[in-house]
């Protein structure tokens, strides 16, 4: 009897076991990015930039050249790389503390320069790695270890919507917010990643995909409740969709 292989793990990931907590969606996002790099034939000519957060060790997971950046600086590190290696694929992988707090300047200016890089932005509304402190993306009323009574708008402002903000920047070429809470959205998320790397391959400028992601451990929920909370609480404040698409019409079917 002939066997037919219907599924195999992507070559975009190494054999290393992922370091994420059970139910954390960082893992799904890794797999999607890795699959796209493999499918687009980019793996052997890609440099990934790991940031500081739960994904800090992803240089052990992605099966391509990797450089680990200081907290928040990944887009600057990626800029440095891309300018001397303009024909290579360069992406960053950053959490919301990394990108929207300490690294806000770097991501905004990379978008302004329309740096031809792809940013994978994982928004889980909390600082995961350091034990669940409030992030700039934490929702109003959300309890964290540094907002024990729930985030208070009067003292900490409103959660930052990064995709919407970057959409105001002329240099940003492609911005989309996606979610990975169910198989349908996982498929859509993968399409978004494909589009982003496509934009980069065509040298069309800055692309970022924002993922609504979960942190069951620091949210204090089961994995399934976390997915439900992402849908019921996060997505209403962070609506999914394409926030910017400045790719020239006609370029798409090149």
């Amino acid at each position, binding site marked *: 009897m002939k066997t037919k292989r219907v599924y195999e793990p992507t070559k975009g990931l*190494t054999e290393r076991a992922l370091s994420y907590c059970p139910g954390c969606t960082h893992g799904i996002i890794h797999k999607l990015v890795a699959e796209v790099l493999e499918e687009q034939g980019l*793996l*052997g*000519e*890609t*440099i990934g*930039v790991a940031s500081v957060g739960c994904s*800090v*060790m992803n*240089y052990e997971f992605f*099966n*391509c*050249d*990797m*450089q*680990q*950046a*200081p907290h928040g*600086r990944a887009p*600057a*590190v*990626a*800029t*440095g*790389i891309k*300018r*001397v*290696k303009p024909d*290579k*694929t*360069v992406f960053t992988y950053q959490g919301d503390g990394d990108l929207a707090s300490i690294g806000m*300047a*770097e991501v*905004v*200016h990379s978008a302004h320069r329309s740096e031809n890089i792809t940013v994978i932005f994982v928004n889980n509304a909390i600082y995961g790695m350091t034990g669940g402190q409030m992030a700039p993306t934490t929702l109003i009323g959300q309890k964290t270890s540094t907002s024990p009574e729930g985030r208070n708008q009067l003292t900490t402002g409103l959660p930052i919507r990064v995709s919407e903000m970057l959409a105001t920047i002329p240099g940003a070429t492609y911005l989309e917010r996606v979610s990975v809470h169910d198989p349908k959205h996982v498929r859509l998320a993968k399409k978004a990643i494909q589009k982003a790397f496509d934009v980069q391959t065509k040298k069309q400028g800055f692309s970022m995909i924002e993922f609504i992601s979960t942190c069951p451990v620091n949210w204090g929920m089961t994995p399934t409740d976390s997915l439900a909370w992402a849908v019921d609480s996060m997505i209403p404040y962070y609506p999914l969709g394409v926030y910017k698409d400045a790719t020239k019409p006609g370029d798409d079917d090149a």
Partner: protein
Amino acid sequence: MGKVLMKGNEAMALAAIKGGCDAFYGYPITPQNELPEYLSKHMPLQGKVFVQAESEVAAINMVYGAAGAGARVLTSSSSPGIALKQEGISYMAGSELPGVIINVMRGGPGLGGIQPSQADYNQITRGGGNGDYHVLSFAPESLQETVNIVKESFSLADYYRNPVMIAVDGLIGQMMEPVELDQEINEKVSPEKTWAANGESAKRGKINKIVSLSLDPYELEKHNLKLQKKYHEMIANEQRYESILTADAEIIIVAYGTMARIARTAIKSLREEGIKAGMIRPISIWPFPSRAFKNLPTTVKTLLAVEMSLGQMRQDVVLSINGQLPVEFYGRAGGVVPEASEIIDKVKSIIGGHKNEN
């Protein structure tokens, strides 16, 4: 090319291009602006990279990225900007990346001033970033010496896989001096950068990673000991200095950079008056040239550290002489440049003190 009259900052920029610099990332700050301005025109003309970053923090991280990808990279700044770059410098040292940093020093602390100073001595030689690391650092005295060291620094950085800093003060950056850009220099052979994460894993057949993280303390200690070995190699091979009229000296001035130029004038006058003054001029400030202080002639009674800062380098002189001689100090701060006459007066007061003791 022969000698040309150039402003210090522009000469350093041209020297960097001649040293094989592929990319420059920087942020404006006085008194080094002519350097990036020159490169903003000339790097693109040569098909090389110039980026004005959004901050010094971004600039040094761009340097970190480009160095990780295997390029020869430069950034330049002045004291407060160097303070901001310390994060990236520490990462470069930790992940063993080459790169060149030019620091045209100005007065501090805080925003300080924009006049020439040497108050970054501790920031440079003690590291400003976290961790047990060192930056190979040079403090040249003339434009010619500066240009030669800038050119050489790229190969030194590649050879040691370590950041190299060239520290001059605003005077050297701003002054015009005849300089020969094509002088023969001793370049170290740069090993091939087989470690670079340059996106060629397919061709190479293996993945390269640029990382300074190590969660296992024993592994991280091992890495630190490996770095220490490299620093000891630098201490053995890169101590650079000039000894001037020390053979019969009664007092030896220790001064570097612009301060050494002024001390030369002072020594000339002192000698004319029959006072036997000499000088040890550190050219490398990390490693500090302790070797210069071994076996000094028995005529020497005193060392005198002279700085455009308040006793920072003196500490290294004290460590080097290890209690065998007194180490006096004269310095001005905040961007005030001492005159030769001030040094002469200080020397005379010290010598006078000796006479009184006799």
